[in-house]
């Protein structure tokens, strides 16, 4: 490439050229003088004969220029100078765009992290998880997993993992930890290499409880072992069983589940030691959280599905009792199949749309600012046109300015969003769960932000083009930039209306979300979270054998009741609205074929002590409560909720005394009916059947005490803690108020509300600047007219009407349109935010007031300016 030295040689080339041309004209002049012309006349004639010297010289120079790079650089320099001159304008434009592009970058990064980007493992794009085709459950039983692993021909290797918790004792305090129980081939199938030490391999497994090894996650090693390389090889106690630390997983590998990052990994074959019970041989019990693997090269997902289905028909034929009809489909790993991915995806898509609208609004805003600027610079443009500049050149100049602003804004927005995203990816909203938000930005995010910046630069840069193209230099230079009013509707007005409408949509939907959230907090959950503490323990973690658990649970309840100020104490295995819940199949009492497809319902199952209903304030509608006589020697009984009674025993009043069957064939008698409630971690759920079983008949190691008291929670927590320590010093307990516990259930709607609120505020800010710009512009254009009006005796009201009438009218139209659209949009919102209904007078009034306030705020300064016009000074100026 010889253009690099050329850049430096160029100065000389240009000088030579100018000199040459000068000599040329000189020579011609001399010749003409020799032919007898006067000197002056000769000089003139020589110049005429030569032609437009400047232009020719420029064109000669262009030969040497690398495309039009130089003129672009000149444009850029000029643009920078121009923007520096009006730094206020530049600041507003850049920050507007930074906000809009930042918002888009953040939303896109989340979308990218959760849906577009494959899991952070080698060759993540060929990684798929299995899902049962018939009931869209992704959970498998362990024997089924083994068959799938060994009989398929499409996967490099099928790995499995499941989430569980354990008490880990490293020699100091026993603490509670989350782990993945993994199949032996887990790390090898995913292609993970150890950070230090080694990982678990298939060769470690030799039947149940044969592999007492764990692999630490990098984060856990860092926080609990202080990066001590000597930790490898050490033995720790997991639920009182010795396990050896084999190694540490690499820092970038945070498990195969988005949102959740385990503290360590342990072999699934040791499930009995970790969970206290083992279903390794129970084909009918599905508990393996996810089965996933890399497709072999060249195998398409469709081929793999067909292959898995042939394994499915094998299972169906050989284990008709447990498996029933078995078809499979492939889903993206990491989001637990189709369980909550669709809702999340819909929400993020909605958010992306809103962010896009914000950007569009910002563009509309900047477009009108630029149009106003172009009009202000009409004289400059006209002058340049008159001096022979081409229109394309002027447009290029304007566009350069726009692009400069958009790139600066984009860069600022991106920096802000990267900071925010890094915070977000380290965020731990729930103290009891190790969370993992894999949303740190990557190349895709940068690329999208850059493209958005460019596109928006073109979008708003192009707004003034028509104006420039049709401008007539002679008129403008002659008449000055007079305000031409009277045109009914300009593009700029339309942009402003669109923008206000978008803002109103955002304000409406964020208000609907806030209202819905506020209302959902004062809802009937089927229990009363106020004034209640949850004491979450797991007796298996503390090493209690199943036969000792009931006695311990009884002692715990009694000990809590003895604490002063405690009014009632109840026990449940997993409280409602917890992040986890268990579902059981139930069958009619005549059923003999107890396979899942024949189930009459899938109620949520709770195991409770007799005192639970009272402590949770769950109302017993009819029948009796369970009591201490409902133990292993008595017939099995259950309390069901209204929804259960309605769906299974169509006639609710006769449900009491009716029977149904559990999956193992146990015949259950309904003894009581309680009110419906909210059970799963989603307040927007439809009424769900639920059943409450006596813990004495259905023992559970998960032990959650509901402690109701009006005492200050902090004091109470201390008292509870010391009570538990007295009972068993090796029992880890997690204590929080029931309201805190419910944060998990409210998390989705909170997030939705916060993000909508942020977008709403941004939309409002954009509208304010937009309306302000428009009003200020129209006032400054018409100052002279207003001055004359005031001089002629116009009243304040009339002046204001003349100055701002248009802005107010546009605001009204835009708000009305936006409100309507917003109400439509909130139908979508109702899926996420519980009780988000747009038909709420408070919301409607709120939106109207908010928009009016916006208008007032935005037009205040221009209005003041219009009112304080001094006609004398104004008219003197011209």
């Amino acid at each position, binding site marked *: 490439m010889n253009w690099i030295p050329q850049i430096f040689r160029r100065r000389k080339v240009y000088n030579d050229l100018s000199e040459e*041309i000068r000599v*040329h004209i000189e020579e011609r002049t001399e010749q003409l003088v020799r032919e007898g012309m006067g000197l002056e006349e000769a000089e003139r004639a020589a110049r005429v004969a030569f*032609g437009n010297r400047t232009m020719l010289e420029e064109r000669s120079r*262009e030969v040497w220029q690398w495309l039009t790079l130089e003129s672009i650089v000149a444009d850029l320099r000029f643009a920078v100078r121009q923007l520096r001159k009006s730094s206020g304008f530049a600041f507003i434009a850049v920050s507007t765009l930074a906000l809009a592009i930042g918002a888009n970058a953040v939303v896109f990064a989340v979308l990218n992290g959760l849906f577009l980007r494959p899991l952070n493992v080698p060759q993540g794009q060929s990684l798929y998880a299995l899902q049962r085709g018939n009931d869209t459950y992704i959970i498998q039983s362990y024997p089924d997993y083994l068959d799938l692993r060994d009989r398929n021909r499409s996967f490099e290797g099928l790995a499995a993992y499941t989430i569980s918790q354990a008490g880990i004792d490293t020699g100091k305090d026993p603490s509670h930890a989350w782990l993945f129980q993994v199949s032996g081939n887990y790390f090898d199938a995913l292609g993970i290499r150890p950070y230090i030490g080694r990982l678990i391999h298939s060769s470690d497994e030799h039947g149940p409880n044969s592999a007492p090894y764990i692999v630490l996650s990098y984060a856990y090693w860092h926080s609990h072992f202080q990066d001590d390389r000597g930790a490898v090889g050490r033995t720790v106690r997991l639920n009182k069983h010795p396990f050896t630390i084999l190694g540490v997983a690499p820092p970038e590998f945070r498990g195969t589940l988005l949102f959740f990052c385990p503290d360590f990994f342990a072999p699934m074959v040791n499930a009995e030691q970790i969970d206290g019970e083992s279903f390794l041989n129970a084909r009918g019990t599905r508990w393996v959280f996810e089965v996933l693997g890399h497709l072999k090269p060249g195998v398409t997902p469709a081929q793999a599905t067909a292959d898995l289905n042939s394994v499915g028909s094998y299972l169906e034929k050989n284990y008709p009792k447990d498996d029933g009809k078995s078809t499979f489909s492939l889903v993206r790993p990491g989001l637990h199949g189709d369980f909550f991915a669709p809702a999340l995806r819909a929400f993020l898509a909605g958010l992306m749309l809103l962010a896009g609208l914000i950007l569009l609004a910002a563009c509309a805003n900047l477009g009108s600012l630029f149009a106003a600027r172009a009009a202000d610079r009409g004289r400059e443009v006209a002058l340049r046109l008159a001096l022979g500049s081409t229109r394309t050149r002027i447009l290029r100049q304007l566009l350069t300015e726009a692009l400069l602003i958009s790139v600066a804004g984009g860069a600022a927005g991106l920096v802000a969003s990267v900071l925010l995203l890094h915070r977000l990816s380290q965020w731990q909203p729930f103290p009891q769960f190790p969370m993992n938000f894999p949303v740190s930005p990557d190349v895709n995010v940068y690329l999208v932000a850059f493209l958005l910046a460019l596109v928006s630069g073109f979008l708003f840069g192009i707004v003034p083009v028509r104006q420039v193209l049709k401008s007539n230099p002679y008129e403008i230079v002659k008449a000055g930039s007079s305000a031409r009013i009277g045109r009914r509707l300009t593009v700029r007005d339309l942009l402003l209306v669109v923008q206000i409408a978008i803002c109103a949509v955002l304000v409406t939907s964020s208000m609907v979300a806030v209202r819905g959230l506020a209302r959902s907090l004062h809802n009937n959950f089927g229990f009363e979270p106020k004034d209640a503490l949850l004491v979450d323990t797991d007796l298996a973690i503390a090493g209690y054998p199943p036969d000792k658990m009931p006695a311990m649970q009884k002692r715990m309840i009694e000990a809590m009741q003895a604490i002063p100020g405690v009014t009632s104490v109840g026990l449940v295995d997993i409280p409602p609205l917890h992040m986890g819940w268990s579902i059981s199949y139930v069958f009619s009492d005549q059923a003999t074929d107890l396979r899942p497809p024949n189930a009459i319902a899938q109620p949520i199952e709770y195991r409770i002590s007799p005192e639970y209903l009272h402590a949770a304030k769950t109302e017993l509608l009819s029948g009796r409560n369970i009591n201490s006589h409902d133990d292993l020697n008595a017939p099995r009984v259950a309390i069901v909720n209204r929804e259960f009674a309605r769906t299974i025993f169509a006639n609710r009043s006769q449900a009491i005394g009716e029977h149904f069957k559990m999956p193992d064939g146990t015949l259950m008698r309904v003894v009581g009916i309680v009110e419906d409630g909210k059970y799963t971690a989603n307040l927007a759920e439809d009424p769900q059947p639920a059943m409450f079983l006596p813990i004495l008949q259905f023992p559970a190691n998960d032990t959650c005490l509901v402690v109701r008291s009006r005492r200050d929670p902090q004091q109470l927590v201390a008292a509870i803690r010391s009570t538990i320590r007295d009972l068993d010093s090796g029992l880890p307990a997690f204590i929080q108020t029931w309201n805190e516990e419910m944060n998990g259930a409210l998390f989705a709607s909170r997030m939705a509300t916060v993000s909508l609120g942020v977008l709403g505020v941004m939309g409002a800010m954009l509208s304010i600047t937009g309306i302000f710009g428009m009003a200020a512009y129209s006032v400054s254009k018409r100052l002279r007219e207003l001055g004359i009006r005031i001089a002629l005796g116009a009243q304040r009201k009339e002046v204001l009407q003349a100055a701002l009438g248009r802005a107010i009218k546009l605001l009204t139209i835009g708000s009305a349109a936006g409100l309507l659209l917003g109400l439509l949009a909130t139908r979508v919102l109702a899926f996420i935010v519980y009780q988000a209904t747009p038909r709420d007078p408070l919301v409607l009034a709120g939106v109207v007031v908010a928009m009016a306030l916006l208008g007032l705020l935005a037009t205040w300064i221009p209005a003041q300016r219009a009112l304080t016009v001094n006609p004398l000074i104004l008219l003197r100026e011209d």
Partner: protein
Amino acid sequence: MMILESLRRQSAHGYALVQHIQQRSNNLLQVEEGSLYPALQRLLKAKLVKAEWELSSTNRRVRTYQITSAGLRHLEQQISSFERMFQGITLVLNPEKATTS
């Protein structure tokens, strides 16, 4: 092409080139004198001519252009292709004459 042809006969500076072309064309080609310069720059960039500052016959420091060997080759190609084109045009416009010749 005309510039290259002129330069092939004799190296010259800009003004002399203009004079030369105007004379040779019997003043049939009246162009702005200045339009020579962008053309010269293009040739210069394509390395078909080279330029040096010299003293002219009128004892003035002028920039004299010389055709390079690449320029000569280019000129020959141009002329031959131009001639072919010219011949083609003549054939279309004047078929009888063309067949006799």
